[in-house]
């Protein structure tokens, strides 16, 4: 009888030990996740983003989306990533020349669009940020953007019940680290692919989809005069160039030279993708042009030809009114309505 009791007690202890609170610690690194397969059209080059270091999971993407739309990432809980990166504007900031920030502050460059980021090697208008995972560090900590201290942010997220659940689902434990946060944001941003425009349908020879005569004319002009920098299928070669945009003393933005300290990089800025271009005005690194026709005019007769102007545009790009009109019609075919309305990327309301 006594022996039986001892056995039972032992068994109970064993069970209690196995079920005890420390169990989490043992299973912490084996979360049950659902891996997510990104659908990339065959015609594209392999992405530069290394998914081996950050495999996409449904839970990781969901956490990233929550972070992207959470104003708690800013010092006064007023501004989320999605505040400036608006889906209907191709994740640019519609109608805003310069980025906005906490406490009514203003930055000194325009908000870049966000899509097809996994092909991009460096970020920002001057290419100063060298990895997608580390990119959000800049707007989060910049005093003119979200103004948040990184350590304070990690503490803030760690104290939030929703994040405890989301981090646990994505990573197997509730622990919030900056690396986990950045990688989740990357996972969400990696899924933002935009290859469903009319242009893509035409290129894929989908039945019943063709360019109109005007679009076709614009396509011809584009391939002749624009495509060496705004190279399809991504509509950028991600290079940094001086396109002849006049220097503004009031902004004193020297572009890439700030990063390299090299005078050869004076006034060089990243070539932006032209996908979704007509929904993401204004244009240029300082958002000075609100209308795409002002951009055409700049290339036609408005350049400032300094020492570092790119050889490809140093003689300007002559565009007569007909070419401009057709170019506009072609650029319109680069708007991806499915992308800017995709429910997987849309804003979620965060109240806690």
């Amino acid at each position: 009888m006594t022996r039986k009791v001892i056995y039972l007690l032992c068994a109970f202890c064993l069970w209690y030990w196995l079920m005890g609170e420390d169990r989490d610690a043992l299973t912490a690194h084996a979360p049950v996740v659902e891996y997510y397969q990104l659908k990339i059209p065959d015609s594209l080059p392999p992405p530069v983003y290394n998914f081996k270091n950050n495999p996409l999971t449904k839970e990781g993407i969901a956490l990233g989306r929550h972070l992207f739309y959470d104003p708690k990432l800013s010092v006064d809980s007023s501004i989320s990533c999605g505040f400036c990166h608006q889906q209907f504007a191709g994740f640019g900031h519609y109608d805003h020349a310069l980025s906005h920030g906490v406490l009514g502050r203003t930055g000194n460059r325009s908000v870049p669009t966000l899509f097809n980021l996994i092909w991009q090697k460096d970020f920002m208008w001057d290419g100063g940020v060298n990895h997608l995972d580390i990119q959000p560090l800049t707007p989060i900590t910049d005093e003119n953007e979200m103004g948040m201290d990184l350590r304070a942010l990690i503490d803030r997220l760690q104290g939030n019940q929703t994040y405890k659940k989301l981090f646990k689902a994505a990573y197997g434990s509730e622990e919030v680290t900056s690396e986990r946060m950045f990688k989740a944001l990357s996972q969400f941003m990696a899924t933002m692919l935009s290859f469903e425009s009319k242009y893509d349908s035409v290129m894929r020879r989908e039945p019943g989809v063709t360019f109109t005569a005007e679009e076709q004319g614009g396509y011809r002009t584009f391939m002749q005069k624009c495509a060496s920098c705004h190279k399809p299928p991504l509509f950028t070669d991600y290079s940094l160039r001086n396109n002849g945009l006049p220097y503004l003393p009031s902004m004193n933005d020297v572009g890439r030279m700030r990063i390299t300290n090299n005078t050869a990089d004076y006034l060089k800025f990243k070539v932006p993708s032209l996908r979704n271009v007509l929904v993401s005005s204004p244009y240029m690194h300082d958002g000075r042009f609100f209308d795409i026709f002002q951009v055409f005019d700049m290339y036609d007769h408005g350049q400032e030809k300094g020492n570092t102007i790119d050889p490809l545009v140093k003689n300007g790009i002559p565009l007569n009114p007909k070419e401009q009109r057709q170019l506009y019609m072609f650029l319109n075919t680069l708007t991806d309505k499915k992308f800017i309305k995709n429910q997987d990327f849309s804003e979620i309301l965060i109240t806690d």
Partner: protein
Amino acid sequence: MKRLLSLIFLFTYTGTAAQQVQLDINHVVGGLPMQLKTATYSNTAGDTFNITLFRYYLSNFSFSDATGKTVAAEKGYFLVSEDSIPSRKLVLQQCPKGRYTQLHFMIGVDSVLNFSGPQSGALDPMYGMFWTWNSGYIMAKLEGNSPSSRLPNHMIQFHIGGYRAPHVTQRMVTLTLPEPLVVGQGKTPHLSLEADVATWFDGAYKVIFTQLAGFMAPGTAADRIADNYQHMFSVKKIVNQ
């Protein structure tokens, strides 16, 4: 459960302890002990200054023996900071057994980790040692005040970084040991190092605060200051036990 884990931990600990090397670092300025904020120092140019923050990365520790054979300690990154006593006591793990006559290490963080996205541990960007506007680690940071400085509030502010040619700021240090360091079974040798901050400004490249009171980007001044502080370390004591 906790007790069981600590027991297991204890066993593993004693198993590898033989291969640890302990290292402690003491900071001085021209031979005077470093005291943040309160003490006043001067450089050879005659500028007086105080120090409010002193912090740097060490990594890639290895040892050489008399035959010239070099072996590496376990890969580790250490953020050493004057304001944190624990950060100045380093434990090098998995050091192979041997009698070593030289110690080698890097001041800074390997180039590849400067463009590999966010890291954890000592390399977590939340420690303020990662540039946000121009990605890459700040390898070493020294801040303070000097009446000679023309910057706001007479501050001096040197954030030394840069990993891309031509402005590369990682520096390898080799220290010849005054007596052999013995790593072996049952022994945890102890090395005491000293870092003299005067070298930052009084090396081959002279820093005069009236002309240069701050530098916070990759560039030539950062490269030269890194050349200077490459020589800031010396070995004070070795205890083989």
